[in-house]
């Protein structure tokens, strides 16, 4: 597998940083022979407004830590979509929170577009806060980058104990969602 670059983006409060962190940790610690680096936006912009986190994955040593040309772009807000779609690779994959993003012509560069009403699914479980994990389950089911087991393991470890159960439900629902 060659170098893969993923950008998760949305607005503050959606748990975009956690998405990158869970993905990065699942790969770095539990996927044999794969390395991962996670970087994220810091400062006032991460406390509201736009938020993003990147995961770079490779088999060998990862020299350059940042994502610049995304193989996968996961957007959970309209603003994030407009801001980052120019850096999606030609033929790359676009994941969209379908109720929060209206696509335009720029999306045509994507080889594949996958849509999910992640927030609505989350709300059915009890809180829009689980939308990020629903998206993670959806991402997991539609790519072969990271194993389901690895992601579930890090959800159990990284998420506060009382939220684990609902996050795992969100993950399952996202995973099983057929657009």
């Amino acid at each position, binding site marked *: 597998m060659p170098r893969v670059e993923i950008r998760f983006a949305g607005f503050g409060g959606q748990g975009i940083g956690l998405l990158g*962190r869970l993905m*990065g*940790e699942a790969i*770095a*610690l539990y996927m044999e022979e794969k*390395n*991962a*680096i*996670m*970087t*994220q936006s*810091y*400062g*006032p912009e991460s406390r509201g407004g736009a938020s993003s986190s990147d995961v770079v994955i490779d088999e060998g040593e*990862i*020299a*350059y*830590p*940042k994502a*610049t040309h995304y193989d996968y772009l996961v957007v959970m807000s309209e603003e994030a979509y407009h801001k980052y779609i120019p850096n999606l690779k030609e033929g790359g994959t676009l994941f969209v929170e379908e109720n929060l993003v209206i696509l335009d012509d720029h999306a045509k560069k994507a080889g594949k577009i996958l849509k999910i009403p992640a927030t609505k699914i989350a709300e059915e479980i009890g809180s829009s806060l689980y939308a990020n994990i629903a998206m993670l389950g959806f991402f997991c089911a539609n790519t072969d980058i990271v194993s389901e087991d690895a992601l579930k393991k890090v959800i159990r*470890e990284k998420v506060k104990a009382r939220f684990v159960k609902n996050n795992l439900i969100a993950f399952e629902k996202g995973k099983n969602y057929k657009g």
Partner: protein
Amino acid sequence: MSKTIQKEEDRTVLTGEYFTTGNLAAAEGALAAGCKFFGGYPITPSSEIAEHMSYRLPQVGGHFLQFEDEIASIVSILGASWGGWKSMTATSGPGYSLMLENIGLGIMTETPCVIINVQRGGPSTGLPTLVGQQDIQQTRWGSHGDYEVIALAPNSVQECFDLVIVAFNYAEKYRLPVTLLMDETLGHMSEKLIIPKKDDIKIINRKKPKDDPSSHLPYKADEDLVPPMATAGEGYRVITTGLTHDERGYPVLDAETQEKLLRRLINKIKKNKDDIILLEEYKLKDAELIIISFGISARASKGAIELARKKGIKVGLLRLITIWPFADEHIEKLAEKVDNILVVEINSGQVTREVQRAVKGKANVHGVLKHGGTIHTPEEILSEIERRVK
């Protein structure tokens, strides 16, 4: 906590595998080195180190104190070091500026301690949340007077852990404040960290005096130019002063004493350069062009080298792990092999000028520079490479 569940009895070294940030790795490295005191002041992008130390130090019998400013922070760690505890602080550019006078006190009084500078863009308040590498010369010359320093620059989360330990070892061995030059990108990015078993970590502690307290000369150095260090409470009646002093530690304000003291303080670093200087050589054997870089910029450089080699351009990298003392001799030798050297750094040429000095005209030196806010992309560096080899 990830793969390994740590036994509660020994919590200083959390042996195991983690996915974590450079800042947290540096904090854990300090604990593994035996650090027991942290005095600090909040400043972006280093605050996570202070936060983590406030959580961890009391678990291992140490203390964390948040002070009223960075001046108090640096001075407090000098005090704790004389109390016999390994001590450290962490800050960023503006805070480092405030610490400089007392880093000089640490050098003059030969006090072991570690300062982490998670660099951001400057000058002044600059770019609090974004990367810079602009404090390289400040670390070297920022305090008044004349002196030698040791500064190390990690380039991965793992190295943040490993090099804090080396920084403590150098501080203890050579008795001076040692600076770890990190940067915002490294401090905040997450990657895999392996914390080894306690027994596999090499720790150096300060030499202790063996002579009788009544005839003890606290600043009489051994052959390595470093005096053994008694700490408070051991009966040696420790004496320190920032004034020029003799072997007894008494102020003697004349040219002769100054000459003798300064020569020793400078030479204890200069004469031990071979021990202190750490370098990484990457694909240098067949290189027709050499990049010299450090810290996060060295990773961008490696990315560029991959791209260049795909195009058949043979480029190699010398990574400065030890920034100060500077690797003059090593760089001069490398310069004999190539026509062009590129120096990649996020500042206006602070290491570039050192390389220019070191090569003594044997190669052309070109800075690949930017002024902070973002790291170089490999493509940017590649285009400079292509310009120089055409």
